[in-house]
């Protein structure tokens, strides 16, 4: 291997230093990591997945199965990148993968010796017993041995972004077809985005020499496109998926890989490109040949050998054997010979075209017809090849085997929305099927391999795409194809190019060639010509015999074949292997290839880092971060804040105790003995207004609101249509046609949406409007025996006496020129008031209450105490209203009484809901000293074994300072729910079993005397 002094699109004046496995190397600007590795004499690039066989660089693009490397260190470490797609950059640190201790000497390559036992399904068959759980034990060790690179474990310090792009015409692939399509659409007037995964535009044209006609045409096209304001050429950008509505998923890679991105600069950007029309010019991928040891370093796709020569100036072999069953490999052979290599072509066909043979003779390339490669000879790299010819076996010394088994159009993106590729017998390949509206295909992806045709197709598709997205302008905008011969127009290149003859270079080989491909590994019991593994999927180490084994064992559908052998399941997704697997299975089953079908193509086409998908949506930006108007007070008063849904709420205040357990009990005790203040701004608040507002509420709540007097509040429960409890809250009538509804914090959005649904779709005749006013009001609750005194002190102008403001009463006023609503409601069981005022003065109102209340012993309390107070009082909340419970389950049936006509009424009376074994709400009290109840514990009778789902479960628990006992709410089968019965509460996560007694869920003040009066 050596770097030539000529050829290539590299800048020899700009050396680039990098390391591979710790060894310092130098490449040039314009190199890929793979080309630089080759130029530095790297032969073994990695070890294989299962057998740990040495592997070299096999391709020059994203189809690379072998040369996967890990880049970067620390949090920037990124594994499994094909060296062929990595742009060389200064300071780049690359490591090979799946080898230990070193690439040259790998201990696990001993797996190769055991390989007869390691065929498809080996692990599943072998590591089955003795118990069903055994696999989980074995798997740990098996996963360690097999595998790819190791991901970094530190947080990735880099920035990833997501952006939205729009285009009239999106063109995928900047090869000859894509360039032509982009130009045609742009000249017609469309806004065009041209996407290219490589760091250089050109596609196939980069395989040709820069100073040839193809190079000149490419340079001319790039100049023209660069001069057009309505064309955006995005290189280093992979279109990884097609989504509904002609949306393309793009992954843009920015800048160099090795240097730290500057502050604020994204390393990768995920793009969502919404296009009116898409032109797929995704080209094609060369197929390998199968023969014994076809994975040895030194075996490479013929197209790759040509790219390394013409694009990177690297001659990858001196004695080259080109093994092919088609014409396209001849151009690689001619170029390699011209660069000084000694080249022999082994063509499996009987009679290649005479003009090809004549060209070969002039180029000094020996052509052996009816010659099939049977084996690569050599350990760490190829030394020689064994050919099978009609006259017998021939061994040829050679250090590079350039293979070509034809071409597979890159149909992936065209198939993502469900369009099945169709088989073309003439080129032995799948091409795109009928693509969606506004989508077009052009170039090699359609099976066209002649450059002139490819460019014509690109022009046509670009025009069609333009016409699709803007029919009105299509008539005046007709793009003429470049006149040939004048400025190296597209017609010229195809005619003169040795690799692109008029006849398809992929003319199907005669049957005997196909046969010999299989014979070389003895598929289907045919004679084995050469011993050694013949790989189909290089990355997943799947051999020809694995496919035969899958067939023998009944895994014959391509989807089963894939999953049984893991063929095509590597990071390369079988880009080079799928077609051979299909054709081999078709052969074994005696079916035609199209009848066997393909596996389903799904995004992404090439791997996408999770960081890019996340973009900026991580940490605090993962979801909205909602603060109440009183948030800052909580933080500056040492509250421990807790994320609940989108809200940040005070969990407990550190002043109340050392930890949450001490604090919440102190906060509860203070609320029961003096008074507590709680921020309840997170409640959903909905204004329900209109002449039919009362009728509307009568329908959405199980209990009636029509007779609720103005100035009074009522607790209400809503059901879903299926009769399950949906939400609860209080609604206050602030005017004859105006109600102020509150919902639980968690359900606020759902309730709002539901009310709008009912008004828009079910009862459009009701004259009601609902508006969310959640953000307009700050809300706080003052609860406890001293609450009224505090309120009176804080708002001396208001009459808050029991007569003026009785339980469930409303008092309206103004505070700091904002509306003020005081509603006397009790969630905790204490005399309590909910104070609503304008959000902008919420913190002031809170401070005023704190100031006025301090002499009375007012202290703030957090969520933990709030939850505990309501459990003591026996109020149901989220843990009980869990989307499975009914009115009867929660003891709320009496609220509905004999009413009818409310949402969920009819289905709420389903027979199964009245099953006596159905769990119903109960109170539970721990009867063992020094033990506690836990939410989630499962309830059993003491006489019954502790197994299965039990009779019910504990939903909420708290320590009750008033009772000096652990109490809880639970759902328990009615048959076991007699008050006084003793149960075992089993908590498997901690292996606890505690005795608990069934009691009334109202632990305190059963007559409600505390909050009345």
């Amino acid at each position, binding site marked *: 291997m050596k770097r030539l002094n000529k050829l290539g699109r590299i800048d020899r004046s700009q050396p680039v230093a990098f390391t591979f496995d710790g060894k310092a190397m130098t490449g040039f600007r314009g190199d890929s990591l793979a080309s630089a590795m080759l130029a530095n004499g790297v032969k073994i690039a990695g070890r294989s997945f299962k057998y740990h066989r040495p592997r070299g660089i096999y391709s020059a693009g994203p189809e690379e199965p072998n040369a996967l490397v890990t880049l970067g260190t620390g949090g920037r470490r990124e594994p499994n990148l094909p060296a062929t797609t990595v742009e060389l950059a200064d300071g780049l640190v690359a490591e090979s993968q799946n080898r230990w201790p070193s690439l040259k000497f790998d201990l696990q390559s001993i797996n190769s010796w055991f390989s007869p036992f390691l065929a498809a399904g080996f692990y599943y068959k072998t590591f089955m017993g003795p118990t069903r759980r055994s696999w989980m034990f074995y798997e740990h060790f098996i996963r360690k041995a097999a595998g790819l690179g190791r991901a970094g474990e530190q947080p990735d310090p880099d920035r990833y972004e997501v952006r939205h792009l729009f285009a009239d015409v999106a063109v995928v692939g900047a090869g000859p077809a894509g360039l032509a399509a982009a130009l045609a659409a742009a000249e017609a007037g469309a806004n065009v985005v041209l996407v290219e995964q490589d760091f250089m535009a050109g596609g196939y044209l980069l395989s040709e020499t820069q100073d040839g006609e193809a190079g000149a045409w490419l340079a001319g096209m790039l100049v023209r496109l660069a001069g057009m304001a309505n064309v955006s050429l995005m290189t280093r950008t992979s279109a990884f998926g097609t989504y509904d509505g002609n949306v393309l998923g793009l992954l843009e890679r920015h800048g160099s890989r090795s240097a730290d991105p500057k502050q604020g600069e994204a390393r990768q950007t995920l793009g969502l490109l919404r296009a009116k029309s898409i032109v797929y010019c995704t080209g094609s991928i060369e197929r390998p040949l199968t023969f014994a040891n076809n994975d040895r370093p030194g075996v490479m796709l013929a197209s790759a050998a040509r790219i390394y020569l013409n694009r990177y100036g690297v001659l990858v072999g001196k004695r080259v054997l080109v093994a092919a069953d088609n014409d396209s490999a001849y151009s690689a052979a001619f170029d390699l010979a011209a660069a000084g290599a000694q080249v022999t072509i082994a063509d499996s066909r009987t009679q290649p075209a005479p003009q090809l043979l004549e060209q070969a003779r002039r180029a000094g390339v020996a052509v052996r017809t009816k010659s099939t490669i049977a084996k690569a000879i050599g350990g760490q790299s190829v030394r020689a090849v064994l050919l099978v010819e009609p006259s017998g076996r021939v061994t040829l010394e050679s250090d590079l085997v350039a293979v070509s088994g034809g071409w597979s159009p890159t149909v992936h993106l065209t198939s993502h929305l469900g369009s099945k590729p169709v088989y073309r017998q003439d080129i032995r390949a799948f091409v795109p099927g009928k693509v969606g*509206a506004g989508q077009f295909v052009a170039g090699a992806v359609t099976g066209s391999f002649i450059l002139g045709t490819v460019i014509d197709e690109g022009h046509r598709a670009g025009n069609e795409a333009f016409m699709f997205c803007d029919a009105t302008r299509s008539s005046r905008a007709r793009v003429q194809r470049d006149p040939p011969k004048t400025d190296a127009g597209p017609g010229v290149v195809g005619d003169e190019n040795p690799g692109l003859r008029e006849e398809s270079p992929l003319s199907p080989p005669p049957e005997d060639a196909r046969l010999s491909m299989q014979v070389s590994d003895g598929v289907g019991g045919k004679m084995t010509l050469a011993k050694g593994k013949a790989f189909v999927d290089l990355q997943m180490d799947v051999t020809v015999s694995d496919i035969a084994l899958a067939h023998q064992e009944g895994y014959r559908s391509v989807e089963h074949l894939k999953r049984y052998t893991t063929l095509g399941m590597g990071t390369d997704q079988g880009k080079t292997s799928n077609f051979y697997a299909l054709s081999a299975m078709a052969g074994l089953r005696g079916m035609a290839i199209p009848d066997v079908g393909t596996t389903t193509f799904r995004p992404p086409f090439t791997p996408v880092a999770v960081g890019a998908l996340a973009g900026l949506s991580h940490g605090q930006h993962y979801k909205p971060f909602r603060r109440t108007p009183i948030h800052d007070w909580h933080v500056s008063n040492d509250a421990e804040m807790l994320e609940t849904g989108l809200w940040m709420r005070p969990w407990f205040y550190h002043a109340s105790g050392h930890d949450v357990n001490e604090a919440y009990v102190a906060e509860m005790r203070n609320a029961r003995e003096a008074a507590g203040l709680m921020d309840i701004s997170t409640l959903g608040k909905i204004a329900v207004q209109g002449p039919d507002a009362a009728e509307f509420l009568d329908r959405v709540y199980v209990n009636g609101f029509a007779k609720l007097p103005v100035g009074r509040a009522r607790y209400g429960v809503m059901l879903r249509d299926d009769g399950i409890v949906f939400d609860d809250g209080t609604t206050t009538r602030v005017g004859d046609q105006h109600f102020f509804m509150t919902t639980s914090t968690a359900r606020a*959005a759902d309730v709002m949406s539901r009310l*709008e649904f009912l008004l828009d779709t079910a009862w459009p005749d009701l004259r009601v409007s609902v508006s969310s006013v959640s953000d307009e009001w700050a809300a706080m609750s003052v609860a406890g025996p001293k609450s009224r005194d505090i309120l009176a002190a804080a708002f001396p102008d208001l009459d808050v006496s029991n007569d003026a403001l009785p339980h469930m009463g409303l008092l309206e006023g103004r505070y700091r020129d904002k509306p003020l609503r005081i509603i006397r409601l009790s969630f905790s069981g204490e005399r309590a008031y909910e104070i609503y005022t304008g959000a902008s003065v919420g913190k002031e109102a809170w401070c005023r209450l704190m100031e006025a209340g301090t002499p009375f012993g007012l202290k703030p309390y957090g969520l933990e105490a709030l939850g505990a107070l309501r459990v003591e009082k026996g109020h149901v909340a989220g843990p009980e209203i869990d989307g499975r419970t009914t009115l009867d389950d929660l003891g709320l049936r009496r609220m509905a009484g004999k009413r009818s006509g409310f949402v969920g009424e009819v289905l709420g009376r389903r027979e199964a809901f009245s099953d006596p074994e159905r769990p119903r709400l109960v109170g539970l009290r721990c009867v063992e000293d020094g033990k506690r109840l836990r939410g989630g514990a499962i309830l059993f009778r003491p006489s019954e074994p502790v197994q299965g789902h039990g009779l019910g479960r504990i939903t909420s628990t708290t320590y009750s300072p008033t009772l000096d006992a652990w109490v809880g709410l639970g759902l328990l089968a009615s048959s076991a729910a007699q008050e006084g019965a003793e149960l075992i509460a089993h908590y498997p996560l901690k292996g606890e079993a505690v005795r608990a007694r069934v009691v009334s869920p109202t632990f305190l003040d059963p007559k409600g005397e505390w909050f009345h009066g």
Partner: protein
Amino acid sequence: MLQIKCPCCGPRDHDEFLYAGDASVSRPAHNDADFERWYRYVFVRENPAGAHREYWQHVMGCRQWLIVERNTVNHTILSVNFSREALA
């Protein structure tokens, strides 16, 4: 990514919308006591391959409830209307 042409806000991405299921079933009157009709409304669904009427709400926009006719095979959106108008 589906794009829904909201009759109020214009073409918007589907992630601004809330999907709420089949709009071809008709809801019984609020005081209809017939169990079978409620049962069919809540639980019984066709699963057509092709045109399907469904409810979407533009929750991140105008909050209107819409009836969207969508082809379930290829996700083409055939029509979008305010449900108040479509049901009237």
